């Protein structure tokens, strides 16, 4: 059995760049792997076809200039870095890519995937950008379309048995992950926010068969070892997709502990304040940040809005703001 430190180190390596030991082992045994953007993707569908759904990120990109030549410097740095990896061949291990209409940036990124990167398989989901039950049917139809496209391309059918065992497998991983992240409800929490994010990001980059034992070991270890350092303040980090533990680490270095990454959990996790993070240039989260700011103000919950850029460590200014934010809460 591996201990906490060992597992976190493995996870840390896994998330540091596009390729990792589990993916290469998966490929070596002749399996297929398809990359996807964002979290609406039904992983079970891929697993039922024996394909590993791999979350596309930008970590490991040193420089986004190959992508910037097409996308300009006015798009969000997450998209630019992920395309930089793709254009320079570092994602060539993917047998396909699935993207979706979540924002203007990702959509333009997909153009480049199709026209320049040219993976063997590509599919674009027109996810409704309206939060309303009346358009759910459209999302379901789009998923049907994805399923059919995957089946056609990989020359297999999703069978009821295949699907149900895929669901079982993913549920197992999800339950473990949830239990792990829920440990942060403890005060003090046995897992720092940065560690928790490392775990959840890594879990999207490791095939379930390898992932589950790692999560099991980690959970058992943490349950035994118990709480960590008491925190100066318990914070929720909300906002757009965040896959960089470094960002959380910069916050936690100021003494705050990030206990959850969703505002809905703010109460459940007894949080003192909210940090809303948004990627520079991102409009989708711009409106959200504006509305959240005023809602929290009205509710009397301390909130700090921070802009960030992908793969850029927190500047002195950001550190000052976080520290001042903690001070303003009397912490």
């Amino acid at each position, binding site marked *: 059995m591996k201990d906490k430190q060992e597992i976190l180190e493995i996870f840390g390596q896994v998330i540091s760049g596009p390729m990792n030991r589990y993916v290469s082992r998966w490929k070596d045994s002749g399996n297929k792997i398809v990359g996807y953007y964002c979290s609406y993707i039904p992983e079970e569908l891929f697993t039922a076809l024996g394909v590993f759904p791999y979350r596309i990120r930008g970590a490991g990109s040193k420089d986004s200039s190959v992508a910037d*030549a*097409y*996308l*300009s410097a*006015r*798009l969000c740095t997450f998209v630019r870095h992920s395309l930089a990896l793709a254009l320079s061949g570092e994602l060539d291990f993917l047998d396909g890519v699935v993207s979706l*209409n979540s*924002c*203007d*940036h990702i*959509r*333009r*990124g997909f*153009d*480049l995937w*199709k*026209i320049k990167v040219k993976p063997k398989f590509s599919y*674009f989901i*027109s996810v*409704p*950008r*309206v939060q*309303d039950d*009346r*358009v759910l049917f*459209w999302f379901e*139809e789009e998923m049907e379309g994805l399923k059919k496209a995957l089946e056609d391309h990989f020359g297999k059918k999703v069978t009821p048995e295949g699907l149900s065992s895929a669901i079982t497998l993913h549920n197992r991983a999800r339950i473990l992950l949830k239990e792990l992240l829920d440990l942060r409800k403890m005060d003090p929490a046995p897992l720092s926010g940065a560690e928790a994010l490392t775990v959840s990001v890594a879990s999207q980059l490791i095939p379930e068969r390898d992932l589950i034992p790692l999560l099991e070991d980690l959970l058992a270890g943490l349950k035994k070892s118990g709480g960590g350092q008491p925190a100066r303040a318990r914070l929720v980090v909300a906002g757009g997709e965040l896959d960089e533990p470094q960002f959380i680490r910069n916050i936690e270095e100021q003494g705050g502990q990030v206990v959850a990454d969703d505002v809905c959990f703010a109460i459940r996790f007894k949080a003192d304040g909210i940090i809303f993070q*948004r990627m*520079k*240039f*991102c*409009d*989708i989260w*711009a*409106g*959200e*940040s*504006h*509305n959240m*700011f*005023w809602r929290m103000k009205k509710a009397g919950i301390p909130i700090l*809005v921070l*802009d960030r850029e992908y793969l850029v460590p927190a500047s002195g200014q950001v550190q000052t703001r976080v520290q001042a934010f903690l001070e303003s809460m009397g912490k």
Partner: protein
Amino acid sequence: MAILGKERFEDLEAIHEGITGMLEIYKEDPASRGLNAYFKAFSQLVENLCRPFDDKQPVVWYNLGMSPELILALEDVHNIPIEAYPALQNIVGDVNFTLDYIDRAEAHGLPPEVCSVDKAGVGAVLKGIMPKPSCILGVNTPCDSQLAALPSVAEIAEAPMFLIDIPYLYGEREVEYVARQIRDAIPFLEKHTGRKFSWERFREICLRANRMSENLLAWNEFRKAVPCPQISKIICLMVPLFITFAGTETGVVTAAELAAEARERSERGEAAVEGEKIRAVWYQDPVWFDLQFYDWMESELKMVIPMDLFGYHAPEGMIDVSSRESMIRGLAHRFIRVMPMSRQFKGPIEWYLNDYLTLCREYKADFGIFAGHVACKHAWGGLGLLKEKSREIGMPLLVFEFDMFDPRVTPVESIQDQITQFVNNVVLPRMESKK
């Protein structure tokens, strides 16, 4: 004119003065038939912005991704495009007010990188100068900025909002999807305005919308002539006209005037620019904060913009009025495939590139201009491929960065400078060598 309420606000005063001034200048000028028609339409828009204060009829706000046909089919309801206020202020009023709207929105927490048009809309709403809406109808196009601004507007105005999702592709299934949402919007509008949706009225509106489109298509056609018969700046004003007046008599008349002017002038062999030397397709947002820029360009460089992305009217907008169903579907076609920007940007990049190639070819452009409105991410994101296409067809492409609403980003002198340099160093030598 009744007491319109414009006295209540210095903002409206500035717009009103601007338009009255323009009408003064152009009304006696037989050579300005098109501009005259525009300014008449815009002065009606000013009245529209005032009237709800007095007649207390319900108001429906909507965004620049759609045209108002559906809303117009409710009797005695005012349709107000959220961006109309700042746009008019910027085009004919006092730019300083627009800048104030932008600053208000930023001060209220909208990040600077959000489109200035949307920030200005939010700022105008924050300032409380727009007649309060019973509800808001929106589409989530053309860009992400709409998705930042609309929910903020709804929250500030405390108004219920119905959002229509525009999908990625354009086919039977997509049209049906949007049509279904438009159908769902009708009871929403009825409920919140307390007014009945009239199918009979809707039919007449659709017929008028078609007549407007016919005129716009004809207009586009006349502008293909060499030399271009009609001035450049007239083309970039099409967007506010269409967004405000599609489906109204004003829309039909204005579009007819624009077309008539272009036709007459070309029949008489008149050119917009005496000794026209250069033609360019302006493929992005116009310089709205200073329309005199276009006059400068024409007289200084002998250069004309026969067509731009805002003036190009797509042929897919004809509404089949044979049944309720077909009308709703017709509107869906418009939302997906006719609204400028939405048409080019929310699908695959080929849509954007293909329209560009078409415009360059049909309007016999000597070069293209990517007028990079800073916040227009989906345009910037396609720039690399646009450059490649341009190289492929041997069409020089000028790229510059500015903000269509905000001269603080790039002042007009700097834009003039960049165009002059490009014309002198790239375009003219190339045209010489081709001769």
